[in-house]
């Protein structure tokens, strides 16, 4: 246990403070270069810097390099590779408008380092019932996991602080699960993801000073998916991500196809005169988590974000319970 404490301290400090100190100058640079977008939920023309993915990937890479220097573990190398490729795909999407299918296919390709480096185990572990060996199907799981986690985090990034706040909860829950299961090296990787998200949340929370953009959301989601596969905690990771999965499920089940947000005509949410968020009655608009939360009555953006984060905490607790159930066998 003592051999992981020093790398834990170095990597967590590096991940948190890299993002904490580099984000303010990045915000100034992005504003100066006119890389800003309007925050549609604020009064007037409030422009916010984007993409924050640049600082997120910097924080992740700095801490992962430290962990790799300590452990020389190919599993860490494969998580780094998947995360960096996911970031690049997101960055391309930040700069150019791409089709709805581009991201899922490109993210599936981003998962290939896990296969090439052989950092997976085709035994899929389920709580209570044990493991099942699925050599063929597991390839499909690897190729599906990164697009699912990447796009899931990307699609929940609709309000100030949701994507980063959600990742704080999910990655700390996943870290706790990895600790319970005794997978300490990957637990440290997951911890750094939590600290990167936490530092970014400081600038992303209401009122946002920077948005992560597709590059940030896909880097966070891609890394989360890679940790799930490499750490053999696929089911636990899915449980911790349930509110975001529900959001994607509701979206897809109402739209019946994969579409980019830009292509949607009906608005799921609109504003009241006092700038609260309100669910629309538009039948053509997708059903989303935010729309469901607002179904009963209008709320402020902050109230909706709090509701989502409470759901994330509930799922995080379910994930930890699932980790304990992994140790129980019938």
């Amino acid at each position, binding site marked *: 246990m003592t051999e992981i404490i020093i790398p834990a301290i170095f990597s967590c400090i590096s991940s948190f403070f890299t993002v904490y100190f580099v984000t303010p100058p990045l915000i100034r640079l992005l504003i100066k270069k006119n890389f800003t977008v309007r925050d549609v939920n604020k009064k007037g023309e409030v422009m916010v810097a984007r993409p924050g993915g640049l600082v997120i990937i910097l924080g992740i890479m700095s801490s992962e390099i430290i962990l790799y220097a300590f452990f020389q573990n190919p599993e860490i190398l494969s998580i780094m590779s998947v995360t960096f490729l996911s970031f690049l795909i997101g960055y391309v999407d930040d700069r150019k408008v791409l089709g709805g299918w581009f991201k899922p296919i490109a993210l599936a390709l981003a998962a290939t380092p896990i296969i090439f480096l052989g950092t997976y185990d085709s035994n*899929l572990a*389920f*709580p*209570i*019932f*044990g*493991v*099942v*060996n*699925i*050599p*063929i*199907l597991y390839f*499909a799981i690897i190729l599906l996991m990164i697009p699912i986690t990447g796009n899931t985090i990307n699609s929940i990034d609709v309000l100030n602080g949701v994507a980063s706040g959600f990742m704080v909860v999910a990655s700390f829950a996943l870290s706790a699960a990895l600790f319970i299961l005794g997978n300490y090296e990957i637990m440290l990787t997951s911890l750094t993801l939590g600290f990167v998200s936490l530092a970014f949340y400081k600038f992303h929370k209401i009122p946002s000073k920077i948005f992560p953009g597709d590059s940030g959301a896909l880097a966070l989601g891609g890394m989360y998916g890679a940790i799930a596969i490499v750490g053999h905690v696929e*089911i636990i990771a*899915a*449980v911790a991500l*349930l*509110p975001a*999965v*529900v959001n994607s*499920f*509701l979206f897809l*089940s109402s739209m019946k196809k994969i579409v980019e947000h830009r292509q949607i005509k009906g608005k799921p949410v609109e504003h009241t005169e006092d700038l609260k968020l309100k*669910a*629309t*009655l*538009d*039948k053509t*608009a997708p*059903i989303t*988590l935010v*729309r*469901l*939360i607002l*179904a*009963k009555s209008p709320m402020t953006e902050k109230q909706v974000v709090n*509701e989502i984060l*409470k*759901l994330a905490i*509930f*799922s995080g607790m*379910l994930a930890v319970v*699932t980790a304990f*159930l992994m140790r129980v066998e*019938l």
Partner: protein
Amino acid sequence: MRFALVGFLFVMWILMLIGGGIIVAVLGPISLLGDSSFPWFVSSGIKAAFAISLVIIWIFILFKVKNWIFTKELNF
């Protein structure tokens, strides 16, 4: 609405546990081709097809649960 959402998350979690149980306890041990000379990947492929079918059934169940939980409270 918060309780409905929490309930929906809980149902999803239970479905995941049950689905895992079916895959591990039922699908995993089945020897579809006995000890015949069929290559292992044929058996594995058939099991994979069953598992994918299970996922589709689960999505269908979730769809129904979603409608049951939310439709009575929503107008959209």
